[in-house]
C-alpha cells in the first residue's frame, strides 16, 4: 500500500469511524514518513521517541482532522508541533543534540518540502537560523558554533533561544 494523500485520507476517515485495521495500516504508513523526516531533524537517540510521541499525538487528536481537508498537511502540522516542542524542551534542558546527517534521498526531499521545516528555518533571521542549524541540528557545541559562525558564545546562546521561540510562534504559518 502506498502512502499517497488519497490512501492516507481514506484510511484516516475509516480510522475516525473506529476501523482498527485501517488505523493500523495508517499508522504503519505514517511511521516511516515521520521517521524519514525526523531523521534529518533530531539526534538519532531521540528519533524513536519523537516518532512515538507524534503517533500518540495523532491518536489523541485524530478528531481534529477535518475529512473534507487533505491529510498530509494535518500530519505535517502535528509532526512539526511535536518537533518544535521537543526542541524547546531540549533547549530548556540545555541539551545539545547530536546529529548524524544522512544524505537526502530521492522522494524525501519532496516530503521535507511538504512538511516545510527547512522553509520554516528560512523565515528566521539568518543569525538565529544559523545558530539553530549549528547547535541543534549539526550538533556542534556552543564554542564550536561560535567559532564557525563568528558570533560570541553568549550571542550563539541568545540566537538559539530567540530562534526557537520564534520558530514555535511560526510553526503554523509556513506553507
Amino acid at each position, binding site marked *: 500500500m502506498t502512502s499517497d494523500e488519497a490512501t492516507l485520507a481514506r484510511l484516516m476517515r475509516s*480510522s*475516525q*469511524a*473506529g*476501523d*482498527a*485495521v485501517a*488505523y*493500523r495500516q495508517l*499508522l*504503519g504508513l505514517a*511511521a*516511516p514518513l515521520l*521517521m*524519514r523526516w525526523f531523521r534529518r531533524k533530531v539526534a538519532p537517540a531521540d528519533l*524513536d521517541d519523537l*516518532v*512515538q510521541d507524534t*503517533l*500518540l*499525538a495523532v*491518536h*489523541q*487528536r*485524530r*478528531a*481534529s*482532522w*477535518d*475529512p473534507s*481537508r*487533505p491529510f498530509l*498537511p*494535518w500530519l*505535517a*502540522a*502535528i509532526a*512539526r*508541533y511535536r518537533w518544535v516542542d521537543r526542541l524547546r524542551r531540549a533547549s530548556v534542558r540545555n541539551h545539545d543534540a547530536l546529529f548524524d546527517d*544522512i544524505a537526502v*534521498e*530521492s*522522494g*524525501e526531499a519532496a516530503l521535507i518540502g*511538504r*512538511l*516545510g521545516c527547512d522553509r520554516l528555518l528560512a523565515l528566521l533571521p539568518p543569525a538565529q537560523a544559523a545558530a539553530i542549524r549549528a547547535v541543534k541540528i549539526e550538533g556542534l557545541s556552543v564554542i564550536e558554533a561560535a567559532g564557525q559562525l563568528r558570533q560570541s558564545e553568549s550571542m550563539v546562546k541568545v540566537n538559539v533561544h530567540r530562534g526557537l521561540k520564534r520558530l*514555535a*510562534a511560526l*510553526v*503554523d*504559518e*509556513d*506553507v
Partner: protein
Amino acid sequence: MTEFTPNPQLEALMDRLAVNVRPVQPLDDRPTMLVLATVLLVIATLMMAWLGLRADLMAGQPHPMFLLRSGTLTLLGIISAAAVLSQAHPGVGRNRQSWGQGWKAAAAMALLFPLSGAVMAFDQPDHAMAMASAASGWECLRMSLLTASLCAMPLVWHLRRGAPVAPERAGLLVGLATGSLGALAYNLHCPFNSMVYTGLWYGVAVGGATVAGRLIVPRLIRW
C-alpha cells in the same frame, strides 16, 4: 530511499493504538459557533434588561456612529471567531488561506476608530479630556471584558478538543474575537457617539481583551 526498519517498540505501540481505537466524531465548528452566539445573545439581553437600550435604538432611529461601530465590531468578532475555530484543525499552510488572514484585514479596519479618535483628540483636547474621564468609560470596559470572558469559554473549550499548533496566535485571536463581541454587546447600551470616546474606550476594551487572551489562553490550550 532508505528502507524503513520496523522497531519492535514502535510496532507494539501502533498495535496497541489500533486495538484501542474508538470511533470519534470529527470536530465540528458549527456547534461551538452556535453556543458562542447563544452566550452572546443571552448576555446582551441581560445587559439590556439591566442597563437599558440606547435611546436612538428605542426610537428606531439609530445614529450613524452606532451603525458603523456595530458593523465593525460584528465583522471583527465573527471573522476572528472563525479564525479561532480554524486553529483547532491544524494544517501546514492553512493560515495562508481563508480565515487565516482575514482577521488581520478586519483588525486593520477596526484600527481606524482609535486612529481617528486620536486625531480628533488632538484637535479637540477639552472634549478628549471629558471623554477620557467619563465614568461610563470604565463601565464600558468592565462590561465588555466580563462579556468577553464568558464568550471565551466555548472557544477555549473548542481549542482544547482540537489540536492548536500555534497556541499564542490562537490565544490572541480568542481575545480579539471575544473582546469585539463583548464591546458589541455593551454598544447596544452605550449612549456615546463620540469618535474620541469610541476610539479610546472601545479600543482599550478590545485591545485589553486581545492582550489578556494572548497571555492567558495559551496556558489553557497547550497540549
